[in-house]
Protein backbone atom coordinates (compact mmCIF):
# COMPACT_ATOMS: atom_id res chain seq x y z
CA UNK A 1 0.00 0.00 0.00
CA UNK A 2 1.40 3.43 -0.92
CA UNK A 3 1.50 6.32 1.53
CA UNK A 4 -1.25 8.05 -0.45
CA UNK A 5 -3.43 4.98 -0.06
CA UNK A 6 -2.63 4.80 3.64
CA UNK A 7 -3.56 8.45 4.06
CA UNK A 8 -6.80 8.01 2.13
CA UNK A 9 -7.76 5.05 4.34
CA UNK A 10 -6.85 6.96 7.50
CA UNK A 11 -8.93 10.02 6.61
CA UNK A 12 -11.92 7.89 5.63
CA UNK A 13 -11.71 5.99 8.92
CA UNK A 14 -11.16 9.00 11.19
CA UNK A 15 -13.95 11.12 9.73
CA UNK A 16 -16.21 8.14 8.93
CA UNK A 17 -16.49 9.10 5.28
CA UNK A 18 -18.04 7.15 2.49
CA UNK A 19 -15.03 6.23 0.30
CA UNK A 20 -16.70 8.05 -2.59
CA UNK A 21 -16.61 11.29 -0.58
CA UNK A 22 -12.83 11.27 -0.26
CA UNK A 23 -10.68 13.75 -2.18
CA UNK A 24 -7.11 14.83 -1.53
CA UNK A 25 -8.29 18.47 -1.62
CA UNK A 26 -10.97 17.81 1.00
CA UNK A 27 -11.16 20.59 3.63
CA UNK A 28 -12.46 20.79 7.18
CA UNK A 29 -15.48 22.87 6.15
CA UNK A 30 -16.75 20.07 3.94
CA UNK A 31 -16.76 17.37 6.61
CA UNK A 32 -19.39 17.37 9.39
CA UNK A 33 -17.37 15.04 11.60
CA UNK A 34 -14.17 17.14 11.40
CA UNK A 35 -14.03 18.71 14.87
CA UNK A 36 -11.44 19.13 17.62
CA UNK A 37 -12.01 15.63 18.95
CA UNK A 38 -11.60 14.16 15.49
CA UNK A 39 -8.26 15.98 15.30
CA UNK A 40 -7.20 14.02 18.39
CA UNK A 41 -8.10 10.81 16.54
CA UNK A 42 -6.31 12.01 13.43
CA UNK A 43 -3.13 12.79 15.35
CA UNK A 44 -3.23 9.35 17.00
CA UNK A 45 -3.83 7.76 13.60
CA UNK A 46 -1.00 9.68 11.92
CA UNK A 47 1.36 8.44 14.62
CA UNK A 48 0.32 4.81 14.24
CA UNK A 49 0.25 4.94 10.43
CA UNK A 50 3.29 7.06 9.59
CA UNK A 51 5.31 6.91 12.82
CA UNK A 52 5.30 10.67 13.32
CA UNK A 53 3.29 12.38 16.06
CA UNK A 54 2.25 15.87 14.97
CA UNK A 55 3.19 18.62 17.41
CA UNK A 56 0.29 20.52 18.95
CA UNK A 57 0.91 23.45 16.58
CA UNK A 58 1.02 21.16 13.56
CA UNK A 59 -2.17 19.37 14.55
CA UNK A 60 -3.95 22.68 15.06
CA UNK A 61 -2.86 23.76 11.58
CA UNK A 62 -4.54 20.82 9.86
CA UNK A 63 -7.51 22.20 7.93
CA UNK A 64 -7.36 19.90 4.93
CA UNK A 65 -5.97 16.59 3.71
CA UNK A 66 -3.30 18.60 1.89
CA UNK A 67 -2.15 19.96 5.25
CA UNK A 68 -1.50 16.41 6.46
CA UNK A 69 0.55 15.73 3.34
CA UNK A 70 2.50 18.97 3.85
CA UNK A 71 3.32 18.21 7.48
CA UNK A 72 4.35 14.63 6.80
CA UNK A 73 6.33 15.59 3.67
CA UNK A 74 8.36 18.02 5.79
CA UNK A 75 9.24 15.06 7.99
CA UNK A 76 10.46 13.01 5.06
CA UNK A 77 7.35 10.96 4.33
CA UNK A 78 7.07 10.62 0.55
CA UNK A 79 3.68 10.80 -1.18
CA UNK A 80 4.29 9.61 -4.69
CA UNK A 81 1.83 7.72 -6.89
Amino acid sequence: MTNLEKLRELVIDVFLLDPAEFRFDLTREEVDTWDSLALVSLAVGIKSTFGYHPTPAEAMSIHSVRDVIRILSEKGVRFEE
Partner: protein
Amino acid sequence: MSFESSARKVFVLKSELPPLWTLQELGSLDPETTWVWAGPTVAARVSAQFRYAQTTPGDPLPDRVATLIVVGGGTIIDQAKLRARDSGRSIRLIAIPSIWGSGAEASPIVVLDHEGAKDIRIHSKYLPDGRAIWPELAASIPPARAREACGDCWAHALEGFLSPLAGDDLRQELSDVMRSMLALPLANDPRWFEVGARACAGQARSSVGLVHGLAHALESPLRAAQPSAGWHHAKLCSLFLYPVMQWNRTISDSWSQKLADYQLDEAAIMAVARELFNPQTYNGIVPILAEHWRSVLLNPCTRTNSTLVRPSALDYFRQTFP
Protein backbone atom coordinates in the same frame (compact mmCIF):
# COMPACT_ATOMS: atom_id res chain seq x y z
CA MET B 1 -3.40 27.59 22.76
CA SER B 2 -2.05 24.10 22.28
CA PHE B 3 -3.80 21.38 20.35
CA GLU B 4 -4.25 19.40 23.57
CA SER B 5 -5.64 22.31 25.54
CA SER B 6 -7.95 23.19 22.66
CA ALA B 7 -9.35 19.69 22.60
CA ARG B 8 -9.77 19.76 26.36
CA LYS B 9 -11.66 23.02 26.06
CA VAL B 10 -14.46 21.32 24.20
CA PHE B 11 -14.40 18.11 26.17
CA VAL B 12 -12.86 18.37 29.59
CA LEU B 13 -11.65 20.95 32.06
CA LYS B 14 -8.88 20.94 34.59
CA SER B 15 -10.30 19.56 37.79
CA GLU B 16 -8.90 19.34 41.30
CA LEU B 17 -10.40 17.30 44.09
CA PRO B 18 -12.87 19.33 46.18
CA PRO B 19 -11.86 19.76 49.84
CA LEU B 20 -12.65 16.79 52.04
CA TRP B 21 -14.99 17.41 54.99
CA THR B 22 -15.49 15.12 57.96
CA LEU B 23 -18.96 13.94 58.90
CA GLN B 24 -18.45 15.72 62.22
CA GLU B 25 -17.80 19.02 60.44
CA LEU B 26 -20.85 18.51 58.27
CA GLY B 27 -22.92 17.87 61.37
CA SER B 28 -22.18 21.28 62.84
CA LEU B 29 -23.58 23.55 60.12
CA ASP B 30 -26.43 26.00 60.59
CA PRO B 31 -29.64 23.94 60.64
CA GLU B 32 -31.64 26.92 59.46
CA THR B 33 -29.80 27.16 56.15
CA THR B 34 -28.58 23.61 55.55
CA TRP B 35 -30.63 21.13 53.56
CA VAL B 36 -30.04 17.49 52.74
CA TRP B 37 -30.95 15.44 49.70
CA ALA B 38 -30.59 11.71 50.09
CA GLY B 39 -31.07 8.82 47.71
CA PRO B 40 -33.72 6.24 48.62
CA THR B 41 -31.24 3.56 49.70
CA VAL B 42 -29.56 5.81 52.26
CA ALA B 43 -32.41 8.11 53.33
CA ALA B 44 -32.95 6.43 56.68
CA ARG B 45 -29.26 6.50 57.59
CA VAL B 46 -29.01 10.12 56.55
CA SER B 47 -31.96 11.03 58.77
CA ALA B 48 -30.23 9.40 61.71
CA GLN B 49 -26.90 11.09 60.97
CA PHE B 50 -27.94 14.68 60.23
CA ARG B 51 -30.48 16.90 61.97
CA TYR B 52 -31.05 19.03 58.89
CA ALA B 53 -34.23 19.23 56.85
CA GLN B 54 -34.25 16.39 54.35
CA THR B 55 -36.19 16.29 51.12
CA THR B 56 -36.41 14.09 48.10
CA PRO B 57 -33.78 14.88 45.44
CA GLY B 58 -35.25 17.21 42.87
CA ASP B 59 -37.67 18.87 45.30
CA PRO B 60 -37.60 22.69 45.41
CA LEU B 61 -35.26 24.30 47.92
CA PRO B 62 -36.45 27.17 50.14
CA ASP B 63 -34.80 30.55 49.51
CA ARG B 64 -32.96 30.43 52.84
CA VAL B 65 -30.91 27.35 51.90
CA ALA B 66 -27.20 28.23 51.77
CA THR B 67 -25.73 24.72 51.90
CA LEU B 68 -27.00 21.58 50.22
CA ILE B 69 -25.58 18.25 51.35
CA VAL B 70 -26.32 15.53 48.83
CA VAL B 71 -25.90 11.86 49.69
CA GLY B 72 -26.35 9.35 46.91
CA GLY B 73 -25.11 7.96 43.63
CA GLY B 74 -23.93 9.86 40.59
CA THR B 75 -27.39 10.61 39.23
CA ILE B 76 -28.56 12.26 42.44
CA ILE B 77 -25.31 14.19 42.90
CA ASP B 78 -25.61 15.46 39.32
CA GLN B 79 -29.18 16.58 40.03
CA ALA B 80 -27.87 18.50 43.02
CA LYS B 81 -25.16 20.13 40.91
CA LEU B 82 -27.78 21.47 38.54
CA ARG B 83 -29.97 22.71 41.37
CA ALA B 84 -27.09 24.37 43.24
CA ARG B 85 -25.47 25.95 40.18
CA ASP B 86 -28.20 26.64 37.67
CA SER B 87 -30.89 28.04 39.94
CA GLY B 88 -29.49 31.54 39.92
CA ARG B 89 -28.68 31.32 43.61
CA SER B 90 -25.48 30.86 45.56
CA ILE B 91 -25.72 27.46 47.22
CA ARG B 92 -22.73 25.64 48.68
CA LEU B 93 -22.77 22.02 47.57
CA ILE B 94 -21.24 19.18 49.58
CA ALA B 95 -21.41 15.71 48.00
CA ILE B 96 -21.22 12.38 49.81
CA PRO B 97 -21.21 9.40 47.45
CA SER B 98 -23.19 6.36 48.51
CA ILE B 99 -21.18 4.30 46.02
CA TRP B 100 -17.85 4.81 44.26
CA GLY B 101 -17.32 4.83 40.52
CA SER B 102 -19.16 7.79 39.04
CA GLY B 103 -16.83 10.23 40.75
CA ALA B 104 -19.59 12.84 40.57
CA GLU B 105 -18.41 14.22 43.90
CA ALA B 106 -15.02 15.00 42.38
CA SER B 107 -15.72 16.06 38.82
CA PRO B 108 -17.03 19.16 36.97
CA ILE B 109 -19.20 16.93 34.80
CA VAL B 110 -22.96 16.44 34.82
CA VAL B 111 -24.46 13.53 32.91
CA LEU B 112 -28.16 13.80 32.10
CA ASP B 113 -30.25 11.08 30.55
CA HIS B 114 -32.78 12.45 28.09
CA GLU B 115 -34.95 9.53 27.04
CA GLY B 116 -31.89 7.37 26.69
CA ALA B 117 -29.60 9.96 25.11
CA LYS B 118 -26.68 11.08 27.27
CA ASP B 119 -26.35 14.84 27.65
CA ILE B 120 -22.90 15.53 29.09
CA ARG B 121 -22.35 19.02 30.48
CA ILE B 122 -18.88 20.09 31.51
CA HIS B 123 -18.17 23.28 33.43
CA SER B 124 -16.01 24.18 36.40
CA LYS B 125 -19.13 25.44 38.20
CA TYR B 126 -20.34 21.84 38.48
CA LEU B 127 -17.42 20.85 40.72
CA PRO B 128 -18.88 20.52 44.24
CA ASP B 129 -17.54 22.88 46.91
CA GLY B 130 -16.72 19.96 49.15
CA ARG B 131 -17.04 16.24 49.55
CA ALA B 132 -17.08 13.76 52.39
CA ILE B 133 -16.53 10.04 52.75
CA TRP B 134 -18.97 8.03 54.81
CA PRO B 135 -17.21 4.66 55.13
CA GLU B 136 -20.18 2.82 56.63
CA LEU B 137 -22.17 3.30 53.41
CA ALA B 138 -19.86 0.83 51.67
CA ALA B 139 -21.41 -2.06 53.58
CA SER B 140 -24.88 -1.23 52.26
CA ILE B 141 -23.93 -1.66 48.59
CA PRO B 142 -25.03 -4.96 47.03
CA PRO B 143 -21.83 -6.97 46.32
CA ALA B 144 -22.40 -7.25 42.56
CA ARG B 145 -23.04 -3.51 42.33
CA ALA B 146 -19.91 -2.77 44.36
CA ARG B 147 -17.83 -4.93 42.04
CA GLU B 148 -19.16 -3.12 38.96
CA ALA B 149 -18.42 0.20 40.62
CA CYS B 150 -14.81 -0.95 41.02
CA GLY B 151 -14.76 -1.55 37.27
CA ASP B 152 -16.01 2.00 36.70
CA CYS B 153 -13.12 3.31 38.82
CA TRP B 154 -10.65 1.21 36.82
CA ALA B 155 -12.06 2.47 33.52
CA HIS B 156 -11.64 6.09 34.66
CA ALA B 157 -8.09 5.57 35.89
CA LEU B 158 -6.83 3.48 32.99
CA GLU B 159 -8.46 5.45 30.19
CA GLY B 160 -7.46 8.77 31.78
CA PHE B 161 -3.87 7.51 32.09
CA LEU B 162 -3.71 6.25 28.50
CA SER B 163 -5.50 9.26 26.98
CA PRO B 164 -3.63 11.10 24.22
CA LEU B 165 -4.50 14.27 26.16
CA ALA B 166 -2.74 13.16 29.36
CA GLY B 167 0.57 14.74 30.30
CA ASP B 168 3.41 13.28 32.35
CA ASP B 169 2.21 14.75 35.67
CA LEU B 170 -1.26 13.33 35.26
CA ARG B 171 0.06 9.93 34.20
CA GLN B 172 2.21 9.86 37.33
CA GLU B 173 -0.80 10.72 39.50
CA LEU B 174 -3.04 8.14 37.88
CA SER B 175 -0.36 5.46 38.00
CA ASP B 176 -0.21 6.05 41.78
CA VAL B 177 -4.00 5.73 41.91
CA MET B 178 -3.86 2.45 40.00
CA ARG B 179 -1.19 1.03 42.29
CA SER B 180 -3.54 1.79 45.19
CA MET B 181 -6.41 0.16 43.34
CA LEU B 182 -4.41 -2.98 42.68
CA ALA B 183 -4.13 -3.46 46.43
CA LEU B 184 -7.91 -3.39 46.92
CA PRO B 185 -10.39 -6.23 46.49
CA LEU B 186 -13.07 -5.87 43.80
CA ALA B 187 -15.67 -5.75 46.53
CA ASN B 188 -17.23 -3.66 49.31
CA ASP B 189 -14.29 -1.74 50.71
CA PRO B 190 -14.65 1.92 51.76
CA ARG B 191 -11.14 2.73 50.49
CA TRP B 192 -12.67 2.71 46.99
CA PHE B 193 -14.42 6.01 47.80
CA GLU B 194 -11.12 7.91 47.81
CA VAL B 195 -9.35 6.14 44.94
CA GLY B 196 -12.54 6.40 42.87
CA ALA B 197 -12.67 10.15 43.44
CA ARG B 198 -9.00 10.51 42.51
CA ALA B 199 -9.46 8.41 39.37
CA CYS B 200 -12.42 10.50 38.24
CA ALA B 201 -10.73 13.83 38.96
CA GLY B 202 -7.75 12.56 36.97
CA GLN B 203 -9.69 11.54 33.89
CA ALA B 204 -11.43 14.93 33.96
CA ARG B 205 -8.00 16.44 33.25
CA SER B 206 -7.46 14.28 30.15
CA SER B 207 -10.26 12.20 28.68
CA VAL B 208 -11.73 8.75 28.67
CA GLY B 209 -11.78 6.39 25.71
CA LEU B 210 -13.48 3.50 24.00
CA VAL B 211 -14.71 1.80 27.19
CA HIS B 212 -16.78 4.89 27.90
CA GLY B 213 -17.70 5.36 24.25
CA LEU B 214 -19.20 1.88 24.26
CA ALA B 215 -20.92 2.40 27.61
CA HIS B 216 -22.50 5.70 26.60
CA ALA B 217 -23.60 4.56 23.16
CA LEU B 218 -24.99 1.19 24.22
CA GLU B 219 -26.62 1.81 27.58
CA SER B 220 -29.94 2.95 26.15
CA PRO B 221 -30.25 0.30 23.40
CA LEU B 222 -29.33 -2.43 25.87
CA ARG B 223 -31.90 -1.24 28.39
CA ALA B 224 -34.51 -1.33 25.65
CA ALA B 225 -33.46 -4.73 24.34
CA GLN B 226 -32.85 -6.40 27.71
CA PRO B 227 -35.07 -4.56 30.22
CA SER B 228 -34.58 -7.13 32.96
CA ALA B 229 -30.78 -7.23 32.72
CA GLY B 230 -30.25 -4.11 34.83
CA TRP B 231 -27.86 -2.34 32.48
CA HIS B 232 -26.19 0.73 33.88
CA HIS B 233 -23.00 2.66 33.28
CA ALA B 234 -20.72 0.89 35.75
CA LYS B 235 -21.87 -2.54 34.61
CA LEU B 236 -21.00 -1.64 31.02
CA CYS B 237 -17.61 -0.19 31.93
CA SER B 238 -16.77 -3.34 33.89
CA LEU B 239 -17.80 -5.52 30.97
CA PHE B 240 -15.91 -3.62 28.27
CA LEU B 241 -12.68 -2.95 30.16
CA TYR B 242 -11.10 -6.29 29.29
CA PRO B 243 -11.94 -6.53 25.55
CA VAL B 244 -11.07 -2.87 24.97
CA MET B 245 -7.73 -3.07 26.75
CA GLN B 246 -6.93 -6.33 24.95
CA TRP B 247 -7.69 -4.60 21.67
CA ASN B 248 -5.73 -1.44 22.55
CA ARG B 249 -2.61 -3.41 23.35
CA THR B 250 -3.04 -5.66 20.33
CA ILE B 251 -2.91 -2.79 17.87
CA SER B 252 -0.51 -0.44 19.70
CA ASP B 253 3.04 -1.14 20.82
CA SER B 254 2.96 1.97 22.97
CA TRP B 255 0.14 0.65 25.17
CA SER B 256 2.39 -1.69 27.13
CA GLN B 257 5.28 0.76 27.00
CA LYS B 258 3.22 3.50 28.66
CA LEU B 259 2.42 1.18 31.56
CA ALA B 260 6.04 0.10 31.84
CA ASP B 261 7.22 3.73 31.80
CA TYR B 262 5.25 4.31 34.99
CA GLN B 263 6.19 0.99 36.62
CA LEU B 264 2.67 -0.35 36.33
CA ASP B 265 2.19 -4.12 36.40
CA GLU B 266 0.50 -4.83 33.05
CA ALA B 267 -0.23 -8.46 33.90
CA ALA B 268 -1.85 -7.52 37.20
CA ILE B 269 -4.00 -4.85 35.55
CA MET B 270 -5.14 -7.20 32.80
CA ALA B 271 -5.92 -9.82 35.45
CA VAL B 272 -8.23 -7.33 37.16
CA ALA B 273 -9.92 -6.51 33.85
CA ARG B 274 -10.34 -10.21 33.14
CA GLU B 275 -11.82 -10.79 36.59
CA LEU B 276 -14.43 -8.11 35.90
CA PHE B 277 -15.27 -9.59 32.50
CA ASN B 278 -18.19 -11.93 31.92
CA PRO B 279 -17.88 -13.71 28.55
CA GLN B 280 -21.45 -15.02 28.51
CA THR B 281 -22.87 -11.56 29.09
CA TYR B 282 -20.54 -10.05 26.51
CA ASN B 283 -21.32 -12.59 23.84
CA GLY B 284 -25.03 -11.96 24.39
CA ILE B 285 -24.76 -8.27 23.56
CA VAL B 286 -22.46 -8.46 20.52
CA PRO B 287 -25.37 -8.14 18.05
CA ILE B 288 -26.46 -4.89 19.72
CA LEU B 289 -22.87 -3.65 19.76
CA ALA B 290 -22.62 -4.33 16.03
CA GLU B 291 -25.94 -2.63 15.30
CA HIS B 292 -24.88 0.56 17.10
CA TRP B 293 -21.20 0.55 16.11
CA ARG B 294 -21.39 3.85 14.20
CA SER B 295 -22.80 5.56 17.31
CA VAL B 296 -19.87 4.12 19.25
CA LEU B 297 -17.42 5.51 16.69
CA LEU B 298 -19.01 8.96 16.81
CA ASN B 299 -19.10 9.14 20.58
CA PRO B 300 -16.77 11.88 21.89
CA CYS B 301 -15.15 9.44 24.34
CA THR B 302 -14.25 7.02 21.56
CA ARG B 303 -12.60 9.82 19.61
CA THR B 304 -10.12 10.44 22.41
CA ASN B 305 -9.21 6.78 22.85
CA SER B 306 -5.52 6.03 23.24
CA THR B 307 -5.49 4.25 19.89
CA LEU B 308 -7.43 5.10 16.75
CA VAL B 309 -10.74 3.23 16.64
CA ARG B 310 -11.33 2.43 12.98
CA PRO B 311 -14.67 1.08 11.70
CA SER B 312 -12.94 -2.25 11.02
CA ALA B 313 -12.28 -2.68 14.75
CA LEU B 314 -15.79 -4.11 14.95
CA ASP B 315 -14.38 -7.39 13.64
CA TYR B 316 -12.29 -7.68 16.80
CA PHE B 317 -15.21 -6.96 19.12
CA ARG B 318 -17.41 -9.45 17.31
CA GLN B 319 -15.17 -12.31 18.31
CA THR B 320 -16.13 -14.71 21.04
CA PHE B 321 -13.95 -14.16 24.08
CA PRO B 322 -13.06 -17.27 26.07
